[in-house]
């Protein structure tokens, strides 16, 4: 049976949609093994640990020294970079293949602009929430910006990671719940998390506590989600046979 022009056009539209979706697959492939999320989780938890040490140590402790913080962050980033590289080289590439991404000058700027827009949106939402709902500056005014920042974070997560894997929507939901829980926590609890000595002079214990809770919870979620992805990846893939291609 000959296909009519409408069916032919439908086929071509489908084909065009498939092309666009295929062109996005290499970017989503970056986290096929969960390594992207594991890296993010380790980074957030590393920052959380450093912040906790700062919050719970005297002002003259080494955790408050800039050089110690710089070494901590440097070692953490190096560990994440080389750890991710080792997993990719020894596990991912032999199982599902190697990809080298295009180096686009614009990408660095794009990330910078995205970061700026995120910060602005979070600040705008916090400002709008405070003025619209008349949130006072003592507690709600402290936890709300952190919670809203989390929600903006979730949007980026959904856009870049969750759309490739259906169960990651549950992870995004967990992030939203965490943001809401942080915003709802009593002032005393948040203040306790912030410790007795605020790491940054301009931040109150409660602001610091809200920040610490945020990065700890999100770090843990990323780590668990990345770990599950990694285990599933290992289960469902095998190293390729060493035959000629």
């Amino acid at each position, binding site marked *: 049976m000959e296909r009519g022009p409408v069916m032919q056009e439908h086929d071509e539209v489908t084909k065009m949609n498939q*092309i666009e979706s295929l062109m996005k697959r*290499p970017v989503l492939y970056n986290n096929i093994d969960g390594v992207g999320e594991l890296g993010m989780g380790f980074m957030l938890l590393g920052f959380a640990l450093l912040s906790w040490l700062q919050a719970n140590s005297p002002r003259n402790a080494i955790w408050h020294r800039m050089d110690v913080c710089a070494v901590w962050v440097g070692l953490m980033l190096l560990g994440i970079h080389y750890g991710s590289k080792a997993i990719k080289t020894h596990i991912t*590439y032999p199982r599902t293949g190697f990809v080298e991404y295009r180096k686009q000058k614009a990408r660095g700027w794009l990330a910078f602009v995205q970061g700026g827009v995120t910060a602005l949106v979070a600040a705008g939402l916090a400002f709008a929430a405070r003025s619209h709902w008349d949130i006072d500056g003592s507690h709600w005014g402290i936890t709300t910006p952190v919670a809203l920042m989390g929600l903006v974070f979730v949007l980026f997560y959904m856009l870049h990671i969750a759309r490739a894997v259906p169960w990651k929507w549950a992870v995004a939901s967990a992030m939203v719940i965490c943001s809401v829980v942080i915003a709802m926590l009593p002032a005393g609890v948040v203040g306790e998390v912030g410790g007795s000595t605020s790491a940054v002079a301009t931040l109150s214990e409660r602001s610091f506590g809200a920040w610490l809770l945020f990065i700890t919870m999100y770090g843990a979620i990323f780590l668990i989600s990345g770990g599950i992805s990694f285990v599933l990846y290992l289960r469902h893939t095998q190293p390729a046979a060493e035959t000629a291609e």
Partner: protein
Amino acid sequence: MNLKTRRIAELDRVIHEPGRLMIVALLSAVEQADFLYLQHETEMNKGTLSSHLSRLEEAKYIEVVKTYRGKIPQTLLSLTAEGRLAFAQYRRRMKEAL
């Protein structure tokens, strides 16, 4: 023949074939990828994928580099400038035709 049908008829037949279109679309988004990655994404068997790659190489749309990753042979594939241009034209014509 109406304009739309004519536009579709003018499409690059090397790229328009579904298997090759998948390969070109995937390679267009990366600097280079290996054979295993394309096999994983396209779910084609080695023979079929090799045959499509040969056709694209003949048309000078892709560059094939045989190398080693440690002791394991690795085939790296990338779109040539000509291939990128042909794919960009293909997409443009497809959009015009729809």
